[in-house]
């Protein structure tokens, strides 16, 4: 099954400010009592979007001006904490197709790329400019160019970071590696048979 080549992500954006936004915040653990990822999008950032009584709070994702946004903008060390793929799954299933942040936690980054959801970094000053532009005009189109590693918005262009392997995976449609891994199985079996602890 050939995967889509991801060169560009275009869409409207929303800014969820803050550093160290952890996976418990992205998807609180109680919503992981499930055996599929279906429906997780509904619980994205649930506890920061709702009061303990379930009333909606003031939050960018509760603001109708940002309905339908497909690019999430945030701060430093985004996605830190657990390895739960429920976090990028919730973001993806809420309609997002890319995240721009100052930096990403490593496991979150890998999980996101494997879903075909680019996570690109930008420096703090550029992010502030982008966030301000998005707040000023929520209807503005933001474009992440995976190939050229730039983000374009409202006539502006800022550089963005994406490590080579991830970039190549997205561009060439290898972001979900399962097919490539399966093709290597004969070599896997040969290597495993030489490792004492792996013998049955």
């Amino acid at each position, binding site marked *: 099954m050939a995967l889509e080549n991801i060169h560009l992500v275009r869409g409207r954006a929303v800014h969820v400010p803050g550093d160290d936004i952890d996976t418990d915040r992205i998807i609180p653990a109680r919503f992981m*009592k499930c055996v599929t990822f279906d429906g997780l999008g509904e619980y994205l950032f649930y506890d920061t979007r709702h009061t303990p009584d379930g009333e909606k709070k003031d939050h960018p994702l509760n603001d109708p001006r940002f309905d339908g946004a497909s690019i999430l903008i945030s701060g430093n060390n985004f996605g830190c904490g657990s390895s739960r793929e429920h976090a990028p799954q919730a973001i993806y299933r809420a309609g997002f197709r890319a995240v721009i942040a100052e930096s990403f*936690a490593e496991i979150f980054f890998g999980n996101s790329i494997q879903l075909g959801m680019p996570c690109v970094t930008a420096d703090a000053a550029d992010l502030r400019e982008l966030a301000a532009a998005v707040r000023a005009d929520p209807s503005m189109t933001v474009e992440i160019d995976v190939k050229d590693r730039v983000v374009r918005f409202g006539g502006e262009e800022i550089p963005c970071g994406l490590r080579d392997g991830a970039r*190549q995976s997205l561009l060439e449609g290898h972001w979900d590696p399962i097919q490539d891994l399966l093709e290597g199985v004969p070599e896997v079996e040969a290597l495993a048979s030489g490792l004492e602890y792996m013998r049955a």
Partner: protein
Amino acid sequence: MGKSLFQKVWDAHSVRELPNGQTQLLIGTHLIHEVTSPQAFGMLRERGIPVRFPHRTFATVDHIVPTNEVAEPYSDPLAQAMIEELRKNCADHGITFFDTNTGHQGIVHIVGPEQGITQPGTTIACGDSHTSTHGAFGAIAFGIGTSQVRDVLATQTIALNPLKVRRINVDGELAPGVYAKDVILHIIRLLGTKGGTGFAYEYGGSVFDGFSMEERMTVCNMSIEGGARVGYVNPDETTVEYLEGRPYAPKGAAWDHAAERWLSFASDPDCDYDDVVNIRAEDIAPTVTWGITPGQAVFIHENIPSPDDGETESARESISEALEHMSFAGGEPIKGIPVDVAFLGSCTNGRLSDLKEVARFLEGHKVNPRVKAICVPGSQAVGKIAEELGLDRIFKEAGFEWRAAGCSMCLAMNPDKLIGNQLCASSSNRNFKGRQGSPTGRTILMSPLMVAAAAVTGEIADAREVFGILEPAGV
């Protein structure tokens, strides 16, 4: 030029280079639990792919198991559905499952080592970020997402980029009342919660040489809180001694050979590290968090920071946000803050040595009546030995609830949760907003003995004062 353990283990498990430049890395040992595996099995079913090496995957159930009820069906039908799904997936694919009726169930990062499944020179993956725990044995062990759990089930490999290696030396002697937990909280405080991104942390120095395996596990466990997906300690005689006689350890002639091979994985003295950090053991005092990330920590005798202490605008904002969540003014001492709950357990500090150390000091003390204190052994085996030693009696007489094994209040995917804005003195690993089950709940991370001190006094306290542990001059 010699090689680090990381390079040796990586090279021994590299299958080939993938089209995107990543390495196809063999995962020798795969551990699974009920939360992050069901979707992976579902993906295999959808594609009609079998489990390739079922004898190299081991399962247990930990996150959702209640610690206050043993009989099934559990009161929570979702928890019941999850344990049944895991049972079925293991049975369908011929995977060993340390189920609740085996006497071997427990937190996955406690079960692997105590069974002798965790071995030096191996690669270990699990859909759980605290898999770094197993690095204590000189394994390269890391957390993976559910799609990668699928990859391991299907091929026993994942696609990965190599990490850089940062050597962290802790030399000298820890003062009495200063524990492995304080060492890792101190390291995270120094290097930050994202300082380890892209690195494997290699811990060494005289403090680690002298540490037991359980102390090494406590430190490696929280590598991920410092941003490092992998943390390890080079294998030595302590490692070999721990593994001898464990159910899955090699036996007979294979044992001698294995022990020799394991030790050969240790980093060569002349290997080149990408970074080296040196820490003096004497500079570490009992450490507690005050905020909403594990890096927001102070020594017990220090004050909580104020926003003005932040060096940048974003640091000031982070401090303000943390103070607001914790309902602290900023600038006041951390000592003396009232606590509502004391939680002793988790994959960080739910091992036998943790319970023994606390019991040694707790005997004769009583939990403050306004504190709810629970002690949760990390595995059924830990619980059983603790009971044989009479530790359960010491905890119960002091006023702790004695529970069945599981993750419990570390992440509250089970009935153990904070209520409202309760403040919990916790031996666990994360103090994120809402982590312990209440969106407004508050967590202060600390060593097990500091949890006991908080339980007894009803406030954040210095365990050395509460339990009469002498402080040497100068600390």
